[in-house]
Every structure is written in C-alpha cells, then in structure tokens.
C-alpha cells in the first residue's frame, strides 16, 4: 500500500551547497539520502515531497558540512501481509511468475497460481494448466494476495515478496471476467 507520511531525518549539507538556498539544498540532500531506501517498518521510500521544518544547523568536529534535523513528507510503499494487489507479469520462470507491483517485484510460485497442476512452456515463456487450459504469460494483468514479506534493508534487490492466486476472486483478470460472465449467465437462466 502506498502512504503519504511525515518523517524525521538528519541531512548533511556539504559546503559547496552553501551558496544555494537552504531549502533547495536540503530537499536535494533528502532525495539523495532517503529515496529508494528500504526500511523494515516503513517499506520503501518512493519519493520525498517536501521539507516541512528545517531545524537548527550543527557543525560537527572534523567536518566542514552542516547537519540539519528535518521533518519531511514522503511517499512510501509497503507490501502488507494479506494485501490484494493488481500487477503485471514481468517475467515467467520455471518455478513461477514475477509480478511488478510498483517498487518491488513479487513472486507467484507455480503452486500458487491455480488449484490445478501447472507446467512450464519454455519456448513461449508461459505457464499452462493441464485441465482447464488456463495460461499465464508475460505482460498479463493479474490480481493476487501478498502472503509473505521479507524486506532486506541492506540489499533492496534481495527483498522477497510471496504471492498467491489460489483463492476466489484472485487470478488473471481475464479468468475473473470469464467467471463473472458465467455466473451472470447462470443467474439469468435460473430467473427464466
């Protein structure tokens, strides 16, 4: 889920920035320091919007730079457990599919795509089910639920997010449409 948050931080303004207006320098420094940072409790900071309050500057011994306490506003994204997300399949591999959910990619394991057995079609880079002829390929939109979150602060690329589609209302959007159509048809038939 994306959130807009007020955060506190400390920012270092190097001396060669001192000729510029303080707010500009602080915002630049905030962006460099905090954007794309992954934090276990916050998630990832997508963008720094503005510096709200810039505190008193401090000069530390041995460094010509000035340090400021800053309150700032930022957009953060955190994948929450049980959250429903809609995303696009970006890569199909032997063991499942990777979904792009914005700042992170989530893994949809083969065992979590449908209730049926799924096989990997290497030539077409697709995952195909045995019985109902469902297939999943790159670029297709799906709806899935987050069932595992492991964020890695030091190596953001190593963060792992597990997804499932084995619940009603989840799956490729085309399958969901098909289910809905079938249901409305049977309802019509019953009414007659």
């Amino acid at each position, binding site marked *: 889920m994306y959130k807009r948050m007020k955060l506190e931080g400390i920012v270092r303004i*190097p*001396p*060669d920035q*001192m*000729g510029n207006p303080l707010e500009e320098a602080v915002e630049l420094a905030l962006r460099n320091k905090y954007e794309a940072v992954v934090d276990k409790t916050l998630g990832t900071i997508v963008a720094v919007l503005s510096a709200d309050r810039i505190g008193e500057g401090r*000069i530390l011994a041995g*460094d*010509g*730079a000035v340090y400021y306490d800053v309150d700032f506003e930022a957009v953060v994204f955190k994948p929450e457990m049980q959250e429903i997300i809609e995303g696009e399949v970006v890569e199909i591999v032997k063991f499942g599919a990777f979904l792009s959910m914005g700042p992170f990619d989530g893994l949809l394991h083969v065992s979590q795509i449908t209730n049926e057995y799924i096989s990997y079609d290497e030539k077409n880079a697709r995952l195909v089910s045995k019985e109902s002829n469902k297939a999943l390929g790159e670029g297709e939109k799906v709806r899935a639920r987050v069932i595992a979150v492991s964020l890695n602060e030091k190596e953001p690329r190593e963060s792992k997010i597990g997804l499932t589609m084995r619940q009603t209302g989840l799956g490729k959007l085309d399958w969901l449409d098909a289910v809905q159509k079938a249901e409305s048809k049977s309802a019509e038939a019953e009414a007659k």
Partner: protein
Amino acid sequence: MKGEKYTRYERARIVGARALQIFMGAPVFIDTVSMDPLEIALEEMKLGVIPITVKRAIAKR
C-alpha cells in the same frame, strides 16, 4: 564578559570550522586577495561576518 563575544577557544573553533568550509568550496563573504582558507576565515572573523554561533551549555549546580 569584558565586551568580548567569544572566548579564544570558541574563536578557534569557529575559525577552524569556517576555514574547513571555505576549503571544501563554501562561498566566501568578503572581498579578499588572500588565497589561503585559514587567512580568509580569520579575516571574516575580524569583520564578524561568519554565520556561526556558539551554543553554550550552562553548568548545573
């Protein structure tokens, strides 16, 4: 304090910090022929244009 704004220790700290800033590329506030950051900082100190103040801890009794 005898009309002095800073103690000699504070002056040394301010001039030192300011000289380091100038050395690291901070803009200089005065017109000067000097090229040495420490000399520039000392000159600025004399003119009182350095935007650095001292926060004094007040001793507890």
